[in-house]
């Protein structure tokens, strides 16, 4: 009888609550002896350059009917490109303060090359394809963050 080995898994979450990076990585690695490499990324609310103390809060709006699908689609594309053991994506929504974590991507694979590439790919695609929008509150009021050309360029790299 073949041993019952857990198959590749992945999961995405969109939530208001903070996440625990160490617990997420530990949960992915636990009892999965084929995993040799775990690459992860945490995105944080950053103080505006040249304007310390100017950013008081940030609100993340999203498209609730679409966000899970968009993230799952991005993860599915990563799984089609690389041999991965597990993927976890958490994106927060609602009101966040400077220093708060916004997004977590964890990718587990046998070797580090795949883990790094897939983790960066997921972030690049998330930045241009997942329906989240940031509104910053400063002393001068609120304004929607502009999309960065650098993010489009980063995502375009993967279409080679």
């Amino acid at each position, binding site marked *: 009888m073949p041993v019952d080995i857990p198959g590749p898994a992945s999961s995405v979450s969109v939530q208001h609550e903070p996440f625990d990076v160490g617990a997420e990585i530990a949960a992915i690695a636990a009892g999965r002896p084929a995993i040799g490499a775990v690459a992860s990324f945490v995105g944080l609310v950053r103080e505006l350059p040249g304007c310390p103390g100017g950013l008081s809060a940030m609100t993340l709006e999203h498209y609730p009917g679409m966000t899970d*699908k968009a993230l799952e689609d991005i993860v599915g594309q990563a799984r089609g490109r690389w041999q991965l053991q597990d993927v976890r994506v958490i994106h927060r929504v609602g009101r966040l303060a400077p220093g708060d974590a916004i997004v977590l991507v964890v990718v587990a694979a046998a070797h580090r090359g795949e883990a790094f590439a897939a983790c960066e790919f997921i972030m690049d695609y998330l930045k241009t394809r997942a*329906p989240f*929008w940031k509104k910053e509150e400063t002393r001068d009021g609120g304004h929607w963050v502009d999309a960065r050309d650098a993010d489009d360029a980063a995502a375009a790299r993967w279409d080679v």
Partner: protein
Amino acid sequence: MIKILYFAGLRESIGSSGEEIALPPGVSDIARLRAHLAARGEPWGSLATARNLRTAVNQRMVDEGAAVQDGDEIAFFPPVTGG
């Protein structure tokens, strides 16, 4: 009927998060739907003027040539800025 959703800055400039309307005669794709909605005048003018507007049909991002059918959920929004 089709369901239309607006997000982020576009939602604020229109002053509405969405509407349900009958699929207008002659509207078969996103580009025509967008032109039809904008042609109604204010507060929908920013549908015509917004740069780089993105669109999803039934929760999938599509380009302006994508087909629109009765029963669809169509979302208009600015370039995304999550992550």
